[in-house]
């Protein structure tokens, strides 16, 4: 069992409220997933900038002087904004791959949570409420975000095993369920050049969608082909730079509720997660159909 929440804003005036709304939804889903929690937030784009969200088990040591060191390596300005065990590194567009390679070779204790122009991912082991407080998630603003509370089935309860998984620039995926063909699919995707950080089944689903989009599919088509290629139980909620998607397997035993108003599209594993959203009483509320792709773009 896991809990999923997602919020895609149509009304820009709600953007400063995104973190607060999503955190409330996430904490409500604590009893579906008390092991660990995570959130992906898509914030405002800054011209000419990209960012990496990184994590360390020993942030005092690993993050000290990291911005200066990276600036020197790149020959361009890199800034570091620390939040508990995570830090957001901002750098010129196009520098993320170079920094990622440098960190992998010179700072193996630093893990990459996400890379892209606007995405930031925060995830840790612990109760959702505690995780949310450590990262001050409720104060964050953005256009859309996805959160996950985890009750582990397929791999260890670690930071890297927590959701969301990000396997491509500004992409993320959260999963409720379990996949049965993830090992063979991971081998296939590795041959196509995809990199994996964990033995987790959900990471394979994320990498599969990244691979499909790299090959030219849009988010909707990538999710549609996932219905054929991914075997097992799943409700996925997926984010891209400007998109938000939902898909359930044909059996659809993992719960899902959606709500839509003029202001937002929201997803919750249970209706409980949606009750504090603005004007939820007048929202169109429905259960997404099995084997049906839903996606929205800005």
């Amino acid at each position, binding site marked *: 069992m896991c809990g999923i929440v997602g919020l895609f804003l149509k009304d820009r005036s709600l953007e400063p409220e995104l973190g607060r709304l999503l955190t409330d939804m996430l904490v409500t889903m604590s009893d579906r997933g008390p092991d660990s929690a995570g959130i992906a937030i898509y914030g405002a784009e800054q011209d000419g900038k990209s960012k990496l969200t990184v994590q360390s088990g020993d942030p005092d040591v690993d993050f000290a002087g990291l911005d200066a060191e990276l600036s020197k390596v790149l020959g361009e300005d890199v800034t570091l904004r620390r939040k508990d065990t995570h830090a957001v590194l901002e750098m010129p567009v196009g520098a993320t791959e170079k920094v990622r390679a440098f960190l992998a070779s010179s700072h193996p204790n630093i893990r990459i949570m996400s890379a892209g122009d606007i995405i930031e991912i925060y995830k840790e082991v612990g109760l959702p409420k505690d995780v949310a407080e450590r990262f001050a998630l409720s104060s964050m603003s953005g256009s859309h975000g996805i959160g996950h509370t985890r009750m582990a089935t397929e791999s260890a309860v670690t930071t890297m095993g927590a959701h969301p998984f990000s396997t491509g620039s500004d992409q993320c995926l959260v999963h409720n369920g379990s996949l049965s063909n993830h090992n063979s699919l991971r081998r296939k995707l590795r041959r196509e050049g995809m990199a994996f950080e964990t033995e987790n089944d959900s990471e394979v689903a994320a990498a599969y969608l990244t691979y499909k989009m790299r090959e030219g599919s849009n988010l909707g088509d990538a999710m549609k082909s996932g219905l054929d290629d991914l075997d097992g139980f799943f409700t996925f909620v997926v984010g891209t730079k400007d998109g938000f998607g939902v898909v359930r397997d*044909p059996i659809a*035993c993992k719960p899902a*509720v959606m709500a839509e108003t003029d202001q937002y599209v929201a997803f919750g594993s*249970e209706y409980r997660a949606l009750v504090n959203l603005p004007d939820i009483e007048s929202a169109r509320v429905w*259960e997404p159909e099995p084997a049906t792709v839903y996606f929205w773009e800005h």
Partner: protein
Amino acid sequence: MQTIDMAESGLRELNSTLQAQAEQTNQTDWEIVNTRGSHAVAVGLDAPIDVTIRGSTGYYCAGMNKQATVRVKGSAGPGVAENMMSGTVIIDGDASQYAGATGHGGLLVIKGNASSRCGISMKGIDIVVHGNIGHMSAFMAQSGNLVVLGDAGDALGDSLYEARLFVRGSVKSLGADCEEKEMRPEHLEILRDLLERSGADASPEEFKRYGSARKLYNFNIDNASAY
């Protein structure tokens, strides 16, 4: 009318209060407010009381109901009226997965749509859905009646025993051993009564009846080589 506000009293207090009502209680009308999608609201009732829930509910609302009438003025999450024995449960909105599962008796009315596995393994309950139902509904259903005014999803009535299925709209596909059956006068009578009791605006003649082909009841010796 007694009102219980779930913002003030907890779920256990709510359920134990309702469960404590005796057969001859004078407090027959109850209203529950601020459910906010809570699970297991109004479960295990066993008295002829009338409970109105103002708002949507989570998992297993009105489970194991006996005698009581439970009305949900919103939508219901998975497993509404699961294993109901008697009484009436009325959902004004939609119901999620496995509504009325394993129910032994009573009447479950869903005024919106029901999703997958509606009436799975039903054992005597009557279920009337004013909208559509999802896939694998009435799987292994043993007895009782499932009435659907809208359409049914894939694999309706798979491995069906003796439950009667009445569908007015289309059926996406029938499950193993489920077939369309002749609508005889006694079936029209059952249907007329259920439609009337559930406030459905439909005439029994518009429906088709589906039931068990009874080919899975006994082992077919011609299949022995497959084992």
